[in-house]
């Protein structure tokens, strides 16, 4: 093995260090080294036993690893990027992932300054631990179909959170099963019998001292699943559960406590910006996620010798052939190797577009209130004329998230199978990673569902091109070029 890889490396003129720096930057590479060195020193992050653990042991271990990682973050002074690197290097999700990745983000994006003081600060300091409770047992990605209700009660100025039917149970909520003591709950807002659609509410669900569920809250873990064994995914039901007025996250919409009147106060196009950011990250990560499997499979196939090349045998050669020399292996692995680079550069381009758009939105105050009045449930391109670039970005992020994660998911399985029998061993390093990566094809929009968003945007762009009133962007330029040349 060692000699064979050395021969492979010696036979290539690729400048590995410079290429690494092109992909990641020297600064990121150094950060990775520092973070991994800290993890390796801590026995909590030893990976020897992980692959033989059952679900219950995994969850217990995940809690220990999660706590250790948060302590290390403080001790080492890691920034957000270094903390993310630590998560990736640790090899498994921890029970705090949704607290860090969704709960805090939701509070930050959708809370008012007053709510930041009340909820965000303790969340950031891990004084309260939360999750983002949107999905329900009977409703996956369709947020408008949610059944949990939040009814405004003018008499004592509270909201009553209630799960009217079994299918209203929050389900699949990461970090909810056993970890969270708070939840950002999406519920249908009712005022005087009128439905105002789904809105976010901050709800305490467990006692901060005993960690027992509070009265009229029914909460627990949903059980074993494919991959993600180290995460507690939860269910949650409410029985006429009261929360104070201040617990409705009110950056964009609020209820006047004195009059009970519903008001819009912000620009929901910024929420679309968050979704675009999350999906852009998925695109960027899809390249490196696939590269994990490709790196393993290519190194192994360069070492593994099996059978003899038929023509070489006829020419009198002896010895077995490196598996990677077979065209049937090359055609499966080398295009995937190319795809890792393609996705990485695409993800980087996507992030640059996102950042440029955020800058532009800040300058132009996109989502002006005049237009916002009209747009309950509207798509981003309908928000106002200035949001066209966001619409393009939204569609692009939907389509690329779907394509990138599909390529990575299917590619990882291809890599595992290219490793032959040993690909089935957990020690290959691909199977467990594949199982943990697989949900990416479903969360943040199911990959098949998302394609409708892209098609809707393209159809709208095509109509605008035919009508002669299309905004100038890459999509419309491509469509116009086709019309002019076909």
């Amino acid at each position, binding site marked *: 093995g060692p000699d064979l890889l050395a021969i492979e490396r010696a036979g290539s003129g690729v400048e590995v260090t410079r290429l690494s720096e092109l992909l990641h930057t020297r600064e990121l590479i150094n950060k990775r080294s520092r973070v991994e060195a800290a993890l390796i020193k801590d026995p909590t992050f030893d990976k020897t036993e992980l692959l033989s653990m059952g679900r219950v042991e995994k969850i217990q271990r995940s809690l220990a690893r999660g706590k250790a990682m948060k302590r290390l973050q403080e001790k080492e002074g890691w920034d957000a990027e270094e903390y993310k690197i630590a998560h990736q290097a640790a090899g498994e999700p921890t029970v705090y992932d949704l607290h860090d990745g969704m709960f805090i983000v939701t509070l930050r994006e959708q809370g008012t300054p007053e709510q930041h003081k009340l909820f965000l600060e303790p969340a950031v300091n891990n004084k309260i631990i939360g999750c983002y409770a949107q999905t329900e047992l009977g409703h996956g990605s369709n947020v408008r179909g949610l059944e949990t209700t939040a009814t405004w009660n003018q008499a004592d100025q509270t909201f009553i959170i209630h799960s009217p039917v079994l299918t209203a149970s929050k389900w699949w909520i990461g970090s909810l099963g056993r970890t969270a003591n708070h939840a950002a709950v999406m519920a249908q807002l009712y005022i005087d019998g009128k439905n105002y659609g789904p809105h976010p509410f901050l709800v305490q669900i467990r006692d901060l001292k005993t960690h027992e569920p509070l009265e009229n809250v029914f909460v627990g873990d949903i059980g074993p699943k494919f991959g993600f064994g180290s995460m507690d995914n939860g269910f949650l039901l409410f029985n006429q559960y009261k929360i104070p007025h201040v617990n409705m996250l009110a950056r964009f919409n609020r209820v006047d406590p004195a009059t009970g009147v519903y008001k819009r106060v912000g620009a929901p196009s910024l929420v679309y910006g968050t979704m675009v950011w999350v999906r852009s990250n998925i695109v960027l990560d899809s390249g490196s996620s696939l590269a994990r499997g490709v790196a393993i499979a290519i190194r192994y196939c360069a070492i593994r010798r099996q059978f003899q090349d038929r023509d070489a045998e006829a020419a009198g050669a002896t010895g077995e052939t490196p598996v990677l020399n077979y065209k049937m292996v090359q055609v499966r692995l080398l295009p995937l190797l190319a795809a890792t680079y393609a996705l990485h550069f695409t993800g980087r381009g996507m992030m640059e577009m996102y950042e440029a758009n955020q800058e532009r939105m800040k300058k132009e105050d996109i989502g002006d209130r005049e237009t916002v009045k009209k747009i309950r449930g509207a798509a981003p391109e309908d928000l106002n004329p200035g949001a066209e670039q966001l619409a393009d970005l939204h569609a692009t992020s939907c389509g690329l998230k779907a*394509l990138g994660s599909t390529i990575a998911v299917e590619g990882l399985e291809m890599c595992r199978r290219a490793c032959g029998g040993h690909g089935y061993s957990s020690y290959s390093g691909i199977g467990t990673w594949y199982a943990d990566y697989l949900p990416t094809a479903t969360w943040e929009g199911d990959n098949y569902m998302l394609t409708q968003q892209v098609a809707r945007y393209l159809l709208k762009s095509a109509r605008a091109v035919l009508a002669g009133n299309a905004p100038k962007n890459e999509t419309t330029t491509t469509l116009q070029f086709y019309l002019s040349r076909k």
Partner: protein
Amino acid sequence: DTGAAFDVLNNDADIVAAYGWRTAYLTFEALRLRDKDHQSWNSLLVHFWRLSTAQSQFLVVRNFYDAVVANPARVAGAVGDVTGEVLRDLFRLYALQTMEQHAADFFTSGAVTTNQISLARTKGISNLLDRVRPHAVSLVDAWNFSDFFLNSSLGRSDGKVYEDMFAKASSNPVNNLTFDPYVDSPVLVKRVAGKL
């Protein structure tokens, strides 16, 4: 001479343009089906999936082109001439392989001919596999994954695949169980201290 809109076998910019052409063709086809033929949204979902996939593949190919092909001097300055050329081979391999897998769309749209697809398959992709093969290990090394990160016997950077497989198998906890295989015995299994 190509008999099609684009020379995808000899011109990298034409590869990108062919992807854009195919997307535009599928877009106007979907528009016709929806607005003129008044087909239901549900009946068009499969077409929409194909359209979205085409659009996203176009964006991936265009981004990859911009990063490694459009400005060869910049790439060579960053990674050297040899590596720059290997990256351009990776671009062609990804773009032609994806095109070959979706050949029907490209052919139907008039972006390429069947002969071009056939040549891409028999010569283009096959030659590119030969060109990329010697650099495969270096190209995955450049991802800079540590052994701690990969946690893989097969993908160890030092190549000690079989030694590591054997060591991990030997020390796995199932080997610390003592089995009582006799069916009449009430004891099934117990843990014992000690190693294999």
